[in-house]
């Protein structure tokens, strides 16, 4: 079962520089195991030691985010297209600048406001 997998630049060191690789599996977990067998170390960049999808990794099956399709249990079929992307705030570079300004990331925007009062 052939599934086309698009690999972002920052992970191509694991695929010998290839942008697109082929894998197999009827779930995302099976596909990632298959990919890791061919491209050793890739799994460790996608999956946390606890066994979940890395917070800053987004994986899409036919352009849809797998987190809403069962995550690692998401089903795959022959001919599906899988895209791996780093998590970024769509539409802006400013996010990174903002994050840098704020230092440690915080879910408490009150702290955000206080930071600039300093």
């Amino acid at each position: 079962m052939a599934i086309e997998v698009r690999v972002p630049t920052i992970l191509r060191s694991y695929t010998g520089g290839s942008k697109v690789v082929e894998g197999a599996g009827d779930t995302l977990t099976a596909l990632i195991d298959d990919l890791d067998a061919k491209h050793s170390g890739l799994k460790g960049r996608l999956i946390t030691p606890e066994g979940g999808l890395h917070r800053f990794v987004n994986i899409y099956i036919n352009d849809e985010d797998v987190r809403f399709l069962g995550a690692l249990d998401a089903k795959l079929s022959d001919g599906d297209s899988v895209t791996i992307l780093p998590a970024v705030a769509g539409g802006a570079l400013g996010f990174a600048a903002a994050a840098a300004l704020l230092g440690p990331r915080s879910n408490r925007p009150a702290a955000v406001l206080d930071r600039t009062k300093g």
Partner: protein
Amino acid sequence: MARYESLLDACGGTPLVGLPRLSPVVPDGAPPVRLWAKLEDRNPTGSVKDRPALFMVREAEESGHLRPGDTILEPTSGNTGIALAMVAKLRGYRLVCVMPENVSAERIQLLRMYGAEIIFSPAAGGSNQAVATAKQIAAEHPDWKMLFQYGNPANARAHYETTGPELLHDLPTITHFVAGLGTTGTLMGTGRFLKEKVDGIQIVAAEPRYGEIVYGLRNIDEGYVPELYDASVLDRRFSVGTRDAVLRTRQLVEVEGIFAGFSSGAILHAALAVAHEAVKAGRRADVAFVVADGGWKYLSTGAYGGTLNDAEEALEGQLWA
């Protein structure tokens, strides 16, 4: 029609228009599947960002964070900056925007026209360079105030209090809400409101997928998820590439006469996907989606004409949403 005391009071209340030609055709006797566009380009500075800009400034004034004459520093790639520039001008603040230099010329001209000052970070350096630039500016000007749209609850609250209620009022039969995912404010605020009021509603995100050069990340750990983001508000999330976004943007103007920016094309792409699924399943659907801004600011990209390949190339390396 209505009259307002000032431009700030004219924010929101945008029209919701049906798309009879782009809505999928259903078989005879099957329940209707309809697409509806929320025209956010009809806001004072021409984008959905007027809502959060106004709410964030008001909130900062009420909490004492902003005082008359203050300088606001905001990293932004465009629409939020333009909206903030207008609000800052009318409320008496100075605005400094940090932005990558690879945004469209019109955005830069608009910002300057509204009185904003712009500090560019080199496009080639990607987000890493933007980080360095912003750090430097912050260190040099510790008194400048940031509203930080990615983590400011007033951003999402603007949509919870305005966009959501407007949609429910205009389309009580709504089954799906589709919007772009950037700061996540539109989806979080509108999505939360609609989920409280409409049983079974689906909240759908459309995320623009740029060429990787735009992001400039060196490794996965440099990724970022906005503080406002709460995945439990969403039911589905689509990644939409440049080609699909351009195709749909062109269809929107060619078929329905709505001249929109490319992020709206990406949103329409996701809206059409859920609409066609509803047709297949024989379910009724009223799919409302956001037209985030008009196409004016993107004309200089040349991506409205020529082949799709040309357009894709023209937008390569640009922030089109």
